[in-house]
């Protein structure tokens, strides 16, 4: 099972996880839940960032994230996966990405959560444009995790 969602408006990762977990109705089956939330910082490459635009390739983004979650489901014994990603205008402190993985035992949840995040950072078609004092600039590259 998995859910992939691209959001154009701010979201609260904690209430998203909570309500997704509720509708799963798998209480007692999962013993482990590993999650990651990436949020917008006010500093990048030693410059103050005031705003950010997140662009994506509609269709390919969802397809790519679905493919990577399917791969994770094959590699590990997972119960469910929730992936959410913001696009549009992001403000400082806003959650950008949420990856949440449920499994019976902890190793699978930890490994799969990180695997999905690393793939998302290196291959999912999203692009950040930051607003700094000198104007707007495209972020050129993600650092490897």
């Amino acid at each position, binding site marked *: 099972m998995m859910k992939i969602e691209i959001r154009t408006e701010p979201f609260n990762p904690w209430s998203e996880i909570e309500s997704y977990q509720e509708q799963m109705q798998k209480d007692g089956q999962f013993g482990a839940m590993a999650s990651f939330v990436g949020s917008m910082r006010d500093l990048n490459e030693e410059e103050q960032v005031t705003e950010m635009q997140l662009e994506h390739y509609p269709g390919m983004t969802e397809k790519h994230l679905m493919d990577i979650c399917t791969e994770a489901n094959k590699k590990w014994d997972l119960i469910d996966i929730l992936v959410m990603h913001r696009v549009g205008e992001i403000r400082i402190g806003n959650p950008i990405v949420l990856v949440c993985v449920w499994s019976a035992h902890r190793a699978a949840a930890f490994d799969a959560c990180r695997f999905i995040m690393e793939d998302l950072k290196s291959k999912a078609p999203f*692009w950040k444009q930051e607003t700094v004092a000198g104007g707007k600039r495209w972020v050129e590259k993600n650092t490897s995790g």
Partner: protein
Amino acid sequence: MSITVKYFASLREILGRSEDSLEIGDGNITVSEVWKQVAGKQKSLPDDVLTVINMEYVKPDAQVKDGDEVAFFPPVTGG
């Protein structure tokens, strides 16, 4: 054959458009040849530009077919 070509992020800004619809007489064309058509004949595909057919990453020498959606974009920076 007819194909759609999409551009994203900085590449979209450099090219000044987000999409092209191409009619190509020759049925034998690779992704990097599509790039030369849209970016100007003398410009070869930059090393860091990612190449996609129908929402799947492909190598620049991949063959494009009638009806394909081709995309070019810079390194991704999501997450």
